């Protein structure tokens, strides 16, 4: 039996396939873009190809992420908070606190045995999210993925006083024109974001182990800055972007068993193709 989790995030869509024993068979990522359903479909097809499976081989599919309602071939939608909690627990069974920094949100979670027992999220503003780095990287004319390396060369960290993304963009332009070295500015940006996220996380009582996930956790500069701001070690999965999709696949496995017991297993054939033409259908 095979299970799938698909996480349609604000920036990236991720699909994960596992077998009955929870072993990872394939994982595919792609940019979300404006057409969620079309992309969900393509990412899913990629994951199936990688694992050498057909859609009908999959026993249960759980969709998560903010675009989860746009995955017509999923059997169930589960919120990203629950999926992240489950996914991160499967990777680090000792985890009690997890921080997921995505493109447009940041989630701080308290986890107990894989269950979500408390959470806080950013409200109304992208200041504490990956968008902050993305926007300032664009202003500085550097690639997002190079920011960590650039920051590692800093001799000092420039204080960035604006947490508002728009004002921070103006501030970095002013710093550059003042002759501040790029690496010092980038290191300052990391610390500014990390302290904002740490302040949010402190609203929960942080208990170790603590894990950092989400796209921003791929940035080594942010991992360093988070360790410094929180004053403690943080665990980072090898593939921090996949945590939600992995949790969704684990929940799919559990949901399948529950449905088999209750006699409520999904029936009918899944039509992966159908999603491809949603735009025309909607016309």
């Amino acid at each position, binding site marked *: 039996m095979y299970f799938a989790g698909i996480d349609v995030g604000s920036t990236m869509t991720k699909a994960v396939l596992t077998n009955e024993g929870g072993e990872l068979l394939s994982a595919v990522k792609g940019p979300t873009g404006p057409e969620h359903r079309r992309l969900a479909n393509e990412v899913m097809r990629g994951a199936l190809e990688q694992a050498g499976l057909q859609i009908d081989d999959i026993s249960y599919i759980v969709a998560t992420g903010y675009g989860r309602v746009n995955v017509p071939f999923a059997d169930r939608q589960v919120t990203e*908070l629950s999926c992240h909690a489950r996914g991160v627990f499967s990777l680090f069974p000792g985890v009690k606190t997890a921080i997921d920094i995505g493109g447009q949100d940041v989630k701080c979670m308290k986890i107990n045995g894989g269950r*979500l027992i408390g*959470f806080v999220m950013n409200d109304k503003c992208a200041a504490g999210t990956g968008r902050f780095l993305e926007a300032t990287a664009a202003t500085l004319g550097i690639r997002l993925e190079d920011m960590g390396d650039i920051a590692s060369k800093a001799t000092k960290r420039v204080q960035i006083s604006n947490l508002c993304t728009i004002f921070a963009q103006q501030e970095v332009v002013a710093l550059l024109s003042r002759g501040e070295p790029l690496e010092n500015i980038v290191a300052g940006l990391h610390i500014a974001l990390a302290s904002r996220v740490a302040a949010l996380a402190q609203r929960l009582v942080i208990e170790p182990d603590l894990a950092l996930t989400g796209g921003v956790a791929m940035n080594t500069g942010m991992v360093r800055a988070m360790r410094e701001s929180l004053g403690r070690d943080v665990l980072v999965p090898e593939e921090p972007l996949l945590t939600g999709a992995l949790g969704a696949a684990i929940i799919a496995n559990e949901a399948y068993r529950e449905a088999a017991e209750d006699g409520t297993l999904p029936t009918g054939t899944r039509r992966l193709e159908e999603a491809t033409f949603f735009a025309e259908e909607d016309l």
Partner: protein
Amino acid sequence: MTAQDKEKRAINRLESMRPLRAKVNETYLKSVEAIQSGKPAVWGMLNFYYGDPILKAMDIEVVYPENYGAIAAAMGVAQQYLDRADAEGFPTHLCGYSLTTLGYASRMMKELGGEIPPEAPLGGMPKPLFLMSSAAICDARYKWFQALGRYMDAPVWTLEAPTPGVKEFFMEGYYDAMVTLGVKHLRDFVAFVETMVGRKMDWDRLDRITNLMIEVNRVWHEVNELRKVKPCPMHSRDFWSAMPAALFLAGDLEDSLRLYQDMYREVKARVDSGIGAVPEEKYRLVFAELPPWHSLAFFDKLAERGWSFVVESFGYRPPIPIDPDVMAVSDPLERITRFSLQFFAGYYEDARQQKVLGGAFAYPYLKYAREWKCDGAMLHPLISCRSASTHLPYVADMLMEKLKVPSLSIEGDIVDLRLFNTEDALARAEPFEETMDHYRMVRQQEGLDW
């Protein structure tokens, strides 16, 4: 079943709530009629039973700008008033109630020369003879009514009120001192009103009205006590719809008493036959502070998930009934003062006994969560209202520490609908169920009985 039917059924609304809800409309219509027939109308502020019975006894129609702000928000017309207040230079961090009505006042007086704006909901608020403000709860209230008074070119009387949660409030002898001060202050207020309307107070009428006010609130309290039962027979939506007749004394009091008694009977019948306001009640919640008036359908969506809101903030609930001996005084002004003080003192009794000062605000919520057997609290910090927001993180901590009841905090505003995102709020509500499930288990392990 269509989506509309589903939404209709998500909360089993009380029939007896409807005539009580209509009382608010009646109040606004009466105030406009009063002005047209040469009778006085006044703009009042939520004053916790202090000034309202006096105005009622003097046959003065009262409308409440803060209630009107909520109505304008619920009817979707607040935005133009908010924009107008913005254009007048009022800072956007003032609360939505004040901004909406300042915008309204500006439109009425500066743009329409004193005419009620044609788009104003419920016939609008007519130009007042004077304004009755209250010092209770927040500092914005002094300045807001002062500013309204200037637009309206009308005098403003501010009713003083005790400040709970400070050291003085717990000192020996404070109660008697507050009663003495309160009665004196009310006498001055009566004299002011008499001068304004050119008539004398009818003290027998005030006596009757005072008794009715106390009885209306006692019955309303009893209705809410019935909500402790599982499944909860009445949802917070019905509470909010029905509360103005008790809280603002909207409409005729004898009629209100009859309607609250009807409501008691309907709720009791539901209790006796095990009927819940939410057909499949899975989670019982306390709602902290003011709801997003513009997005109340949000609660229907939560009801579809089995969430029942069984109790809400003490800031607008009826006072806990007072010992009849304390009320056995002949002077109606003293009865009014004691009744109003009971609102401020009664809810802090647990805190007073435990000698808690700064954290007193959390104690009513602890009582609610314990007695109404809540699985969670929904906190609604308002971006523009410190009084309804700053204590909420502390409330959340105390609920967790003492009772293992988790809280979900969703930021928003009472009037500005741009600040409340229903979809976002719902996305947080779903995972919160997992948290409530977990703490239900923890409470059982810790020997708490719900």
